[in-house]
């Protein structure tokens, strides 16, 4: 696999998750306390760094055949989950992911919660909301970056792709100070789902002892083939768009929740 494919897959996956995490942090900061929300963000990033530092050497020490089977299996299961959600959304069977509505929902919930001080954290609710958002959204990306990077013996490139995506989302988030509703999140999830599924199939089957016709070139067939198959699934399962009841006071949003 070329370095660019590794970079694109990790970058897009990371953009999608970073946009979701940003929405949660913005809600925690806007409705509650910015200092606590940002403390939660850094605590979350630190937790992710510890997890990656612990898992990185463990994953890298697995023999290549076993690693490909393990990584391929994990990526394929992740990929099929992403792809299924993307197909369900694209075919109208699941409401589209709408950051504006999610922001409003998180904001309303945050405004109603009681304030509580714990240690150095002025607002525990804002801290935990932000912390959970970063850790939960970041964990999947950490796995993707780590598994892609270790399989290609290029963890620095995977880490650079993840860092570039986070920096881009943070920079735009700080500039607009609003949820990034215009990011084509659903389309990006579709592309990432296709790439995870293709690489998961390729590496997993190789790890299990299969030999692909054309070796690495098989990926050039697998990726478009899965894309076409996914589009066929969208057409097959297409239905009327899901209508989600919009709660009172959220008249600005027109989409649905996660």
């Amino acid at each position, binding site marked *: 696999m070329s370095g660019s494919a590794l970079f694109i897959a990790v970058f897009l996956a990371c953009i999608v998750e970073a946009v979701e995490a940003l929405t949660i942090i913005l809600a925690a900061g806007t409705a509650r306390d910015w200092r606590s929300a940002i403390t939660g963000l850094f605590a979350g990033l630190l937790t992710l760094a510890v997890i990656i530092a612990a898992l990185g050497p463990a994953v890298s020490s697995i023999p290549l055949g076993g690693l490909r*089977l393990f990584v*391929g*299996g*994990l990526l*394929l*299961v*992740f990929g*099929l*989950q992403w*792809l*299924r959600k993307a*197909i*369900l959304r694209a075919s109208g*069977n*699941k409401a589209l992911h709408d950051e504006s509505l999610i922001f409003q929902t998180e904001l309303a919930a945050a405004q109603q919660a009681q304030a509580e001080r714990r240690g150095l954290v002025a607002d525990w609710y804002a801290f935990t909301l932000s912390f959970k958002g970063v850790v939960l959204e970041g*964990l*999947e990306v950490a796995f993707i970056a780590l598994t892609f990077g270790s399989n290609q013996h290029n963890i620095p490139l995977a880490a650079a792709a993840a860092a570039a995506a986070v920096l881009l989302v943070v920079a735009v988030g700080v500039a607009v100070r609003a949820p990034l509703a215009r990011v084509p999140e659903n389309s990006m999830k579709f592309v990432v789902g296709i790439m995870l*599924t293709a690489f998961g*199939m390729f590496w*997993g*089957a190789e*790890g*299990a*002892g*299969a*030999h*692909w*016709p054309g070796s690495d070139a*098989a990926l050039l067939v*697998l990726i478009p083939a*899965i894309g076409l*198959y*996914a589009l066929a*699934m969208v057409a*097959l*399962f297409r*239905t009327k768009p*899901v209508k989600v009841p919009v709660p009172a006071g959220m008249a600005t949003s027109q989409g649905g929740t996660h």
Partner: protein
Amino acid sequence: MINKVRAFGAFWYDFIIGDDWRVAVGVAFAFTLTYIASRATTAAVWWIVPLAVVVLLPLSIHRVTRHTKS
């Protein structure tokens, strides 16, 4: 304590297995079959995993759409 262990297990189950455990089982089955077949024969076995994906994906989507419609 038991609740915390249960919540920890539930988190990892949700994280790795996700919404449809059948997909994870199907993937594991396809890789196991590929491994056994690659050891038992010299014939091409690369097609087993793609075939599993071709079958698993629409089945998993169908399960969700069937529930949505009903």
